[in-house]
């Protein structure tokens, strides 16, 4: 059975058979893949810790008939800081679900960039931040941009006219900011101030220091967050189930 080594980030896992688990992982070389971890559910199995979501691994994979099998595994990062609050766990779950929804199996074109982006996001999420959603929003924007769905902020994404008077709304189906004239005819347009659109543009390009120190007004932050989440949801093509729980936690209903 031929083998190959790779790094990976665990996105999700599900139980199969009596003692095995199937993990959905993100690898820098091969994109999203499903691997089987035999015996991972046995207590005392050295693989059980490696099947946890948001764990970074170094693995040796044996090519199988249908699914590849993990033969050797070493945990390289556990991001334990993410497991200390419900909000951080919910946010990490949300990011993993978005990546799982946006990436197709064996699509390796942007794999390395997305892998690095996720590892960087998990590192940043462990640091204290004035606006905790900044890192998540910035990661989502960079993720969609990396996959070729990046939103437009400088021109109306509907009529291509420059947004001289400032944008009026943000539309996921049209691909970003839209002008006042076009906004009225778009069903999914979310009314946004020019400041909120500037905030989205800033998040898309800001460095790590900015992301942990940025603290926009509450209303702007909420508008930008809902626009970004709607944008990602549209491109994911399915409901991101963990989004509702994350919003409830952020709103203080569940924390």
């Amino acid at each position: 059975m031929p083998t190959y080594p790779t790094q990976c980030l665990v996105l999700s896992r599900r139980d199969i058979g009596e003692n095995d688990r199937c993990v959905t992982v993100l690898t820098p070389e091969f994109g999203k893949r499903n691997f089987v971890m035999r015996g991972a559910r046995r207590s005392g199995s050295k693989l059980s810790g490696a099947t946890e979501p948001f764990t970074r691994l170094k693995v040796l994979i044996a090519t199988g008939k249908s699914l590849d099998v993990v033969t050797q595994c070493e945990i390289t990062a556990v991001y334990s800081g993410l497991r200390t609050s419900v909000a951080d766990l919910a946010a990490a779950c949300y990011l993993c679900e978005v990546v799982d929804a946006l990436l197709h199996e064996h699509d390796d074109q942007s794999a390395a960039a997305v892998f690095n982006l996720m590892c960087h996001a998990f590192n940043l999420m462990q640091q204290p931040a004035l606006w905790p959603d900044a890192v998540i929003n910035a990661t989502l924007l960079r993720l969609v941009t990396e996959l070729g769905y990046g939103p437009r902020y400088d021109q109306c994404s509907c009529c291509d006219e420059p947004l001289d008077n400032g944008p009026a709304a943000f539309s996921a189906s049209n691909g970003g900011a839209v002008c006042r004239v076009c906004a009225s005819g778009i069903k999914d347009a979310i009314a946004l101030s020019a400041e909120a659109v500037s905030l989205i543009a800033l998040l898309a390009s800001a460095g790590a220091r900015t992301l942990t120190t940025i603290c926009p007004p509450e209303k702007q932050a909420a508008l930008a967050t809902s626009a970004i989440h709607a944008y990602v949801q549209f491109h994911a093509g399915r409901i991101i189930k963990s989004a509702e729980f994350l919003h409830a936690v952020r709103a203080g209903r569940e924390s």
Partner: protein
Amino acid sequence: MHYAKPLARLVNELERLPGVGPKSAQRIAFHILRQPQEQSRLLAEAITAVKENIRFCKECSNFTDQEICDICSDSRRNHTLLCVVAETRDLIAMEKTNEYRGLYHVLQGLISPVDNVTPDLLKIRELFPRVVNGVEEVILALNPTAEGQTTALYLASKLRPLGVRVTQIAHGLPAGGDLDYADQATLISALQWRREIT
């Protein structure tokens, strides 16, 4: 389908069971077919009886055939200690230790945002009236997984304002385990949950 209709129906029904694939379903179906009529009747009766008679205990949400389960109605147990577990099988595992003599609360699952399992779908609401009714300590005995940790943190945040002591079982190396084979996550939690030897 090459089976006779009743047999095909049995194979189809068995295939719905967790961990039972088409081959296993076929094997079980033929085993049932070959065994004496009386044994098959007992199996069918047991399945019907479990569905008709088993319900949630009004106190702890454990499966029981009475209104209040044996554990909750046992006056010899420590009623100031409450152990929260995810599933009934976790309760059985705890009982097998013969170490714990308090009461239980079974959540019937863990919070899993990815699977759409939110707190309102679990037996969490039923926990709070019990806690304010003379409980001094709540022990969270949940799996050391992302779902288990999410549930534990959520419960801790809701229980602490009620003025009760909230503890969590230790996470770390299994009995008979090898330190050099332990993964990073396990070792980190073993270090975090270390205690002084007295």
